[in-house]
C-alpha cells in the first residue's frame, strides 16, 4: 500500500518535472516578442473575465487590450497565437460548465440553509426540502418542498421512457439493420425533423388538442395529466434514443454479423443474439440519454400541467398533473423573489446534477463498449 502511494507520488513528481521542463523548452524555443504578445493577451483576457465577474464597468478595457494583442499576434506570430487562442477556447468551454455549477449552487444556497433540520444535534441543511411534501411560498409557514415536483418528474420520466425506449430501440434497429437504403434515406431525416420540432410547438398541440381530449375521455376535473405530458415528452426524447442507439448498433463489426448469418440464421436471430447483445451497453447509454432529455424537458410540461405543486392522490394517479421540476422554474420565475427564487435554483441544481450524472454514466458505458468491441476484433 505504502509503496504504491510512494510510486504514485514519485510518478506525479516526475510528471510535474517533465511538464516544467517542457515549459522551459517552450519558452527557450519561442521568440521573446511572440511570448510577450500572447502573455499580454492572456493576462488581459483574465483581467476582463475577473472584471466581468465583479460587475466592473472597466471590463471593456482589458478586453480591448486582449483583442489588440491577439490581433497583433495573429499577423506577426500566427503559429503561436493560434495555438494559444484555441487553448483559450477549450478552457472557456470547461469554464462555462464550472460557472453554471457555481452560480446555480450559490443562488440555491439560501433556501437550502433555510430548510435545515437538526437530527440528533447535527444540522443537516436542505433536509426538509425532501422530507416534507408542502410547497407554500406565500402563506406561512413558508415551505419549499421539492417532493411534489420530484414526484411529478419521476412519473413523467417513467412514462416517457416507456414510450421512447422500446419505440426508439426498435426504430434504431430498423434504421441500422433492416431498412432498405431508400427507406432509410426517408426515415432518418424524418426522425431528425422530429427532434427539430420546437418543444413549445409540441406543448401547444398538447395544450390545445391533447389536454382537452384527455379531460373529456377520462372524466378528469380540469386539464393537465402526467400521462399525456409523459407521452409527449417521450415522443420528444425518441430522436435522441434513436440516433445514439443507431450509432451503437452501427459500431458492431460487420464481421460478427456476417459470421452469424453464415451459420444460416435469419436476420432477426442475428439481431437478437449477436447485434443487440454486442451493442447492449451502447443501446442502454442511448436510453439513459433519452431519460436525461425527458427529465430536462421544460416547455411541454409547463404548458400542459396545472402549475400547482402537490402530490397526486393516490400517488400513482397519472391522470392529474401538477408540476415537474422544470415546469416549476418556468412557471414561477416571474413573480418569485428571495427564498422562493432560490428554491427555483434548488430545482435547477437537482435537474443539473441528475442529468450530469446520467450523461457521465452513459459516456462511461459507451467508452467501455468501444473498448470491448475494439478488443474483440
Amino acid at each position: 500500500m505504502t509503496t504504491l502511494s510512494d510510486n504514485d507520488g514519485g510518478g506525479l513528481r516526475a510528471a510535474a518535472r517533465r511538464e516544467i521542463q517542457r515549459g522551459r523548452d517552450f519558452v527557450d524555443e519561442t521568440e521573446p516578442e511572440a511570448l510577450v504578445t500572447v502573455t499580454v493577451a492572456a493576462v488581459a483576457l483574465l483581467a476582463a473575465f475577473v472584471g466581468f465577474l465583479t460587475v466592473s464597468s472597466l471590463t471593456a478595457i482589458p478586453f480591448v487590450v486582449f483583442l489588440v494583442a491577439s490581433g497583433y499576434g495573429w499577423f506577426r506570430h500566427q503559429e503561436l497565437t493560434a495555438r494559444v487562442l484555441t487553448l483559450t477556447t477549450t478552457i472557456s468551454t470547461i469554464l462555462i460548465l464550472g460557472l453554471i455549477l457555481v452560480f446555480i449552487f450559490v443562488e440555491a444556497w439560501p433556501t437550502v440553509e433555510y430548510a435545515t433540520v437538526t437530527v440528533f444535534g447535527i444540522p443537516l441543511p436542505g433536509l426538509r426540502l425532501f422530507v416534507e411534501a408542502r410547497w407554500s411560498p406565500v402563506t406561512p409557514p413558508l415551505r419549499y418542498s421539492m417532493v411534489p415536483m420530484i414526484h411529478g418528474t419521476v412519473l413523467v420520466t417513467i412514462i416517457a421512457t416507456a414510450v421512447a425506449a422500446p419505440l426508439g430501440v426498435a426504430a434504431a434497429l430498423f434504421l441500422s439493420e433492416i431498412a432498405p437504403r431508400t427507406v432509410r434515406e426517408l426515415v432518418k431525416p424524418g426522425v431528425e425533423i422530429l427532434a427539430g420540432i420546437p418543444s413549445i410547438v409540441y406543448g401547444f398541440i398538447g395544450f390545445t388538442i391533447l389536454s382537452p381530449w384527455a379531460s373529456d375521455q377520462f372524466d378528469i376535473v380540469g386539464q393537465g395529466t402526467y400521462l399525456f405530458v409523459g407521452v409527449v415528452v417521450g415522443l420528444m426524447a425518441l430522436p435522441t434514443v434513436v440516433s445514439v442507439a443507431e450509432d451503437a448498433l452501427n459500431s458492431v463489426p460487420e464481421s460478427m454479423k456476417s459470421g452469424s448469418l453464415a451459420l444460416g440464421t435469419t436476420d432477426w436471430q442475428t439481431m437478437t443474439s449477436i447485434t443487440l447483445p454486442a451493442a447492449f451497453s451502447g443501446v442502454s447509454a442511448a436510453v439513459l440519454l433519452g431519460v436525461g432529455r425527458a427529465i430536462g424537458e421544460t416547455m411541454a410540461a409547463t404548458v400542459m400541467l396545472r402549475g400547482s405543486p402537490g402530490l397526486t392522490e393516490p400517488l400513482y394517479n397519472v391522470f392529474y398533473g401538477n408540476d415537474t421540476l422544470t415546469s416549476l422554474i418556468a412557471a414561477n420565475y416571474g413573480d418569485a423573489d428571495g427564498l422562493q427564487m432560490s428554491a427555483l435554483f434548488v430545482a435547477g441544481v437537482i435537474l443539473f446534477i441528475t442529468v450530469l450524472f446520467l450523461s457521465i454514466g452513459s459516456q462511461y458505458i459507451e467508452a467501455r463498449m468501444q473498448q470491448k468491441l475494439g478488443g474483440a476484433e
Partner: protein
Amino acid sequence: MAGAVESSLVSEDTSGTEAVAAGVVGIAAILFGISLGSMFELLSITDPIAGIPMVALLGTLLTLLGLGVIGFGLGSRFGYVATDPRPSAGLVASVAFSGIWFAVGGLVASQSFGLGTVGWVAVAFVTGGLAFAGTALPREDIGSTLPVGVFAVFVGVVFLTGVIGPSWVWDLGWEQQASFNAEFSIPVITAFCSLLVSWASAKAYGGFGARGRHVGAYLLVYLNALSIIAVLFLLVAFTVFKGLPGLFNGLTFGLGSGPETTLFGFTFAWPFAWPFVMNGVALLNDVNGVLPAIVGTIWLVIGAVVFAVPLGVGAAVFITEYADRGRFTQVVEVATNGLWSTPSIVFGLFGLAFLVPRLGNGKSLLAGMLTLGFMLLPLVVITSREAMLAVPDEYRDASAALGVTKWQTIRSVVLPASLPGIVTGIILGVGRIAGETAPILLTMSGSVAPPGSQTVDVIGGFSFTSSPPFVSNPELLQATSALPYQLYSLITAGVGQSSNIANIEQFRWATALILLVVVLSFYAVGIATRYYFRRKLQHE
C-alpha cells in the same frame, strides 16, 4: 425429380395457409384502422357501420380473428399445415402473455366479481401463471397462438355480450376522480388485440420457428417505423392546416404595396404586403403580426452563432490537433457532453444568475444571445470534432511532409476538409436553439404581444460614449420577443393582455406555424447540405 415434386407440394400447401394468414392480418389491419378512427373521433362507437352496431361488429371480428389464430396453432400442431416450430415459444412471449392474462384475471375478479384485493391478486396470479405455462410448456405453434387467440375471443365475447358496451364506464374511485369510458377503452383494447393477433398470424405465416419469429418481429418493427413517420407527418400537417389561414391573412401583391424599409441609407418599398410577418400587434392594425418576434429570433441566432462558433471550432481544433490524448482531452469531452445534455431551463437559470445582473441588470437581447450561445457551444464542439477526426491522417502527413507548420496544416488542410461537417453541425444546432423557449424565457422575454415599433434595430442602435465601454447599444440591452417565447406567452397570457388580437386562436396557430417553418427550414438546409457533400465525396 422427386425433390421437385415435393417442393411444389409444400409450396402449394403453404400458399393456402399463407392466404388465410394474410386474410387474418388484413382483418386485423381493418380493425386497427377502425379503432384509430374512433380514437381520433372520426368514427363514433355508438354509430352502426353497414347496419351493424359498431361494438358488435368489433366483437364479431375479434372473435373470428381469435378463432383463426387458434386454428393456425391447432392446424400446425396436428400436422395439417407444414411448419417448423420450436419446442417452446420462448421467455419473452411467455412473460408478455402472462402479463396480459394477469391483467385480464385481475380485472375480471375485481370488477366483474367484486373480489377484494387478496381475491383479485390470487385470481390474477392463477390466470397469469396459466398463461405462462400455456405459452412456455407446449410446442411453439400452440404456445404462441393459443393464449393470443383465447384472449381475442374473450375480448370479442365481452364486446358481443355487452359487458363492455357503448355506455360502459369504469370509475377508478380515486380521490382525484378519473374513469375509463367505452369511447376510449373499446378502441384501445381493439387496437391492442389486433396488433397481438397480427403478430401471431405473421408468425404462423412464416411457419413458426426462426423464420416465423423473423416475420413476426419484422411486422412490429416496420409498424413502429411507419407510426413514427405517421406521427411526424400528422403533427406537421395539422399545424400547417390550422396555421395557414392566419399566416396569409391580408396578403397582397403589387408594386409599392408593401411597407417601406430603409437599409444602409437606401429606402425601398416591398413589392408585396404580408401583414402577419410585417406588422406588430396594435389596436388599429387590420391584421396583427409577429414582426418583432421574427426579428428578435434572427438577432438571437446571429448573436449565438457569433459567440459560439469561434469558441466551439477553436476548442475542437485544440483537442483534436494540438492536445495529446489524455486526461485533459477526456475532461473536455466529459464537459462538452455534460453541457450538451444539460436541460435548457438550467441554462436559463444560469443566464438569470450570471448574465442578467452583469448586462444592464435587466432581461436583455444580449443575455438571451449569450445564453443560447452557451447552449450552442457543446453542439459545435462535438460536431466539429467529429468532422475533424474524420479527416484522414494521410492528409495531415502529406501536408507535414511539405515542411509547413502545424497551424498551416490545420488552416489549409484540416479545416477545409472538415468544413462540410462543421457547417452541417452548426446549421442543425441553430435549428435547435432557434426553437428553444426556456432559456430566453428567463433571460430575454419582453411583452406578450409587442407592437411593430418595438422591433429591435441592432445595427442602428450602436452609438459611441465617452465612458467605458465607449460603445453602447441600448437595443441590445432591451428585453424583446422571439417566436418561441411569443407562442408561449400567447398560450399563457390572459385575455386582457392580448385583447388587441381579434382572432387569438388563429393568431396562435399562425405563430406556431411560422416558428415551425423557421426551425424546420434550418433543419432542411442542414440535412440537404449533408446529403450534397456526402454525394460529392462519394463521387470523388
